[in-house]
């Protein structure tokens, strides 16, 4: 129902339409509430789909009324502009009395009382095609003309209007697809399963975007509209958190880890965990190794106050795991990793993941974190530049595990399972050397899991 579209119609079709009509230009028509059946005389107005000033097309929904357990959608018989709504929400409306005033356009036809399903005058073959699909195609006469002009079968166009009506945009989109023009991405984001991801790494670009458009004879009108909405709720809170985060001077440190031995170890341990009812991923190992490292470099598990005047070394290692959910990026944490076994961490992770995907995480799970790991690799990517989550001072982003050729001690090439890690730390209190040493220690635990055994608490 965009004003732009309506004026486009007027310009291109004024000279084509040829009708004699008793209705003069811009006349206000009182659209009365028609008979609903079952002898009903009054209904309650429950929702307005239009407001004064909106343009409506024939068959657009105007409002929803309710009577005795029946919900009725009232649709417009006219094309035009809504000039007056005769009732407020929850008021009683009467059958036979005016519901809305519509200013109609003189050159457009008015639909008759009896709604007739339109069957377009097309070839017999197309008629049959429509029957096979088994549904009537709804479209205004102007849209049908546009389709015919462009040799488009209405049955092949998916309607996105109300009641699956085919709109002008649908014809244009169909045309654009046919000629290979680049289409704008759909407004709804893809539903990604709840996996932890870093908030800064973008997804890899798809091939679709690099197609070269084939020149066509008719100019295509792009019918998409910008959509502005307020930033609210959780996203508003994230804006505040990220603004505070970027006040922290970040420095980055990256490295690559050879996980060949860990991959094998996990394969052996997976069935054991399965028997106990727990799914074992790589994260519990990463988390435990981080905690062991933090015992040697407690400054990475610390917090500074607002003016960086005091530093608090946190006793508990509450390691956060970034999770992508319907809300957005949330970071539940595993509490007291320093006293948990790898299995206990895995079990707790399972619990947090299940609650996270059901939107049932509690405040206790989401607060109190001291250090964070973000597994962007499950979605893709290698290196990242993660943003520290205040009041923490460090964060690690883990890339995907790739099989790459590496040299062993004898100078021979072998297949190695390589993962990249990107750390960010608060440069006001953490220096490069500390971060590097922590990373090396973490790396050594993971590259040689047996060494974790000696230091396990």
């Amino acid at each position: 129902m965009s004003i732009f579209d309506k004026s486009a119609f007027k310009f291109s079709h004024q000279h084509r339409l040829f009708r004699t009509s008793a209705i003069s230009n811009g006349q206000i028509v009182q659209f009365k509430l028609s008979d609903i059946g079952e002898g009903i005389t009054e209904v309650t107005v429950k929702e307005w789909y239009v407001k004064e000033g909106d343009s409506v097309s024939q068959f657009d929904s105007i409002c929803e009324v309710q009577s005795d357990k029946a919900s009725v959608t009232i649709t417009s018989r006219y094309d035009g502009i809504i000039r007056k709504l005769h009732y407020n929400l929850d008021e009683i409306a009467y059958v036979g009395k005016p519901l809305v005033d519509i200013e109609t356009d003189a050159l457009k036809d008015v639909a008759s009382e009896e709604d007739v399903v339109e069957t377009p005058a097309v070839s017999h073959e197309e008629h049959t095609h429509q029957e096979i699909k088994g549904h009537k195609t709804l479209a205004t006469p102007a849209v049908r003309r546009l389709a015919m002009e462009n040799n488009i079968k209405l049955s092949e166009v998916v309607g996105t209007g109300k009641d699956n009506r085919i709109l002008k945009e649908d014809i244009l989109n169909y045309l654009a697809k046919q000629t290979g023009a680049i289409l704008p991405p759909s407004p709804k984001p893809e539903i990604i399963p709840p996996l932890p991801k870093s908030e800064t790494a973008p997804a890899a670009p798809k091939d679709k975007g690099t197609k070269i458009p084939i020149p066509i004879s008719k100019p295509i009108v792009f019918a998409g509209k910008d959509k502005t909405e307020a930033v609210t709720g959780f996203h508003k809170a994230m804006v505040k958190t990220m603004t505070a985060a970027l006040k922290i001077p970040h420095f980055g440190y990256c490295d690559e880890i050879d996980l060949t031995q860990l991959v094998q170890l996990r394969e052996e341990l997976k069935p054991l965990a399965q028997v106990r009812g727990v799914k074992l991923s790589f994260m519990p190992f990463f988390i435990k190794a981080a905690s062991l490292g933090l015992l040697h470099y407690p400054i990475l598990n610390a917090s500074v106050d607002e003016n960086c005047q005091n530093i608090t070394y946190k006793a508990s290692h509450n390691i956060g795991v970034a999770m992508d959910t319907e809300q957005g990026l949330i970071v539940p944490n595993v509490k007291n990793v320093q006293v948990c076994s790898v299995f206990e961490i895995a079990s707790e992770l399972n619990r947090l993941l299940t609650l996270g995907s059901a939107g049932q995480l509690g405040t206790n799970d989401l607060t109190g974190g001291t250090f964070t790991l973000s597994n962007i690799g499950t979605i893709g990517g290698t290196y990242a530049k993660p943003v520290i989550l205040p009041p923490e001072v460090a964060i690690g982003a883990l890339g995907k595990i790739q099989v790459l050729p590496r040299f062993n001690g004898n100078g021979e090439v072998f297949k190695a399972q390589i993962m990249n890690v990107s750390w960010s730390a608060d440069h006001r209190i953490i220096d490069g050397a500390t971060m590097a040493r922590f990373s090396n220690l973490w790396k050594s635990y993971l590259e040689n899991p047996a060494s974790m055994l000696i230091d396990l608490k």
Partner: protein
Amino acid sequence: MVIPSSLKNCFQLFYVLKISAAGFKYTANRGLILQSVSSDVYQNLAVEDWIHDNMNLENRQVLFLWRNSPTVVIGRHQNPWQECNLKIMRKKNIKLARRRSGGGTVYHDLGNINFTFFTSKKKYERMENLKLVVRALKGLRPQLDVRATDRYDLLLDGNFKISGTAAKLGRTVAYHHCTLLCSADRFILSSVLKSPYKGIKSNATPSMPALVKNLFEEDPTLTCEMVMDAVAAEYARCHQIDHRITLINPADEIVFPGINNKTKELQTWEWIYGKTPKFSISTCFNMVYEQSLLEVKVDIHVKHGRIEVCNIDLPEQWLPPAMCNELEKNLIGSKFCPSETTALASALLRICPQNYELHSKWSLLCENVMTLM
């Protein structure tokens, strides 16, 4: 992977729909009986939408039989907070759906049968449909005391409601659907249909609580399959059509082009919660903090499922006023939803002074505010 029998059903449906769309006066095929193979409420509601939007019902009628896995279904203009216990539903994984027809709230599970009668708007007649169901039941078990009331309910033994009705009228098509309690879980039914939320002021359509009973309790030999078959047979007899039930898969885009979009729309938060008519919650609750009892007064206005106005009255200086204001300000525009509120509150905690006492007070307050949702 196409199984021959489903292909056959597809072709039968095509054939039948083809005849209908051509507008022939094909009297032998004036009706269709469909039964869903899915127990997903959103898919089944999408079938109703699809038939309403796409089928030509000028000269034909359709009966649609369906059952759902545990779900609470509210009417088009109802308020889920007023109608059901969302907390229990979340814990027990019982879904919430909003249908497009009016009426009240019902509990569905596999022991509750849904019948939808599709007709043209002119032929919309709820009482006739209910009489049909009563005839079918009496045909099965003549001793059953079942009758329709003028509120379009079906009562067993004069006292117990076994069926509720709702309807949707569009431009040319109308449908009337009703439930039928055969062997539903009455314990869960009564616990989820009782709202724990206090202080709600709203113009949403209220439900009328009623005593219910299962047909199975009256006659244990009755099963859902028998009842569905009996109603289908009576429908076939009335409309002089084949007593053949066509099984349909609501996820089949070939038979129902565009249906998956309808299913998705019915599952969105904007539809299920966002369509709740404007309402307000004015209530107070008590919190216990370190052996002292605190009274908190809350006034929240919700529109389109989002918080429009938020006032939280705390005992003086219990929490720095700036912090309380921050919470109120950030809740405005946010979804009236516990997971959104938890995520929001936890994120905000990151940027306020890092003080154990403040954090635990904040968390306590947020947990309590969430119990209103």
